[in-house]
């Protein structure tokens, strides 16, 4: 692979790295696992990059590769701990931006999202990233109607987790 390609890739990844970090944040629960998954997604993105045509937005393309790696390709590292041992420190909520109640609510929400299964997390991730149902259905390979139905179910599930 030539240097120019490598340079353009690194530049784009540096700029859009938040997408990958956010995928890692949803699918892992500690520092090492986060870095492991980030590493694997980077490799997958880099391998697929020569075929990236530029007709799609780099960020849109990243969502697909990132989620596919997290849901399907990634083999959990041995260091990874159980999801129930979720570390709230991972989610630093800026206290000055929220009042106490909202901060507490957010922490509980992050914990609840972590209890969802891989597919549900993917839907929540795309929803949080403000993707419309067409994009969600195209990324996941399901129909738009099913994406909508499932998303509503996920919302109900989250409500149940939060208010048992």
């Amino acid at each position: 692979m030539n240097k120019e390609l490598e340079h353009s890739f690194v530049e784009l990844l540096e700029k859009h790295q938040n997408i990958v970090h956010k995928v890692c944040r949803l699918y892992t629960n500690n520092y090492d696992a986060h870095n492991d998954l980030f590493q694997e997604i980077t490799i997958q993105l880099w391998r697929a990059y020569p075929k990236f045509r530029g007709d799609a937005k780099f960020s849109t393309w990243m969502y697909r590769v990132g989620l596919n790696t997290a849901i399907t390709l990634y083999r959990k590292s041995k260091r990874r701990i159980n999801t129930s041992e979720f570390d709230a420190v991972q989610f630093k909520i800026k206290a000055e931006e929220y009042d106490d109640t909202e901060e507490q609510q957010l922490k509980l929400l992050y914990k609840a999202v972590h209890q969802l299964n891989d597919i549900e997390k993917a839907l929540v991730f795309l929803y949080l990233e403000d993707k419309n149902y067409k994009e969600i259905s195209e990324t996941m390979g399901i129909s738009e109607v099913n994406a909508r139905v499932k998303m509503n179910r996920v919302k109900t599930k989250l409500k149940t987790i939060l208010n048992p």
Partner: protein
Amino acid sequence: MDELDLLKKHWQSDGIEDKHLTSKDIYPMLLKKSSSIVKTLFYISVAELIFWILINTLPAFFSDGYNERMAELYGSHISVTVFTILSYVVIVLFIYLLFKSYKNISVTDNAKKLMENILKTRKVIKYYVIYNLIMAFLSMVIGFYYAFQNDPKIKTIFEDPNNTKSIITYIVIVAFTGLFVLIIWLFYKLLYGILLKRLNRNYKELKKLEV
């Protein structure tokens, strides 16, 4: 406000500053090796191809006694030649199918398609294993049949109605071969079961959405 909308508000304003990487951090990452399940699946399939090819060909290459014995037992029977050619055709066919299914696996496909393509590859490997296990079992049964037909020593033993011990030995050998084949099969089931547990679970979840 909906719970998810509250989360969305925070999510989008979250810059994850504490994890920010520079290009200097990213460059070395490109040189690291992947540890994806596709890579593991690839290594397992190559190991399986080599393993079964060696099992089938090693005795013929390294043991003169084996070759002589085979010639003595089977002679230049046409079915043996056909069988040998067929087994090589099957190996080439499996290599082609594996290569083709690996080429189809693309991380840029949608989630469902990617999972389907990985599962298709796993199926090709499964059929190769089943083929080899059936062949291993059949070769043993046919081998005994030919031995019974052509080997004068075995023929005398089996023709003796009082020699029940040898018949029991024969049954025990067949039973053990069956057990051996079963154990290998269970080993593969366990191996792929562990490797693809998460993928299977997620694929089922996606398929469930279609019902």
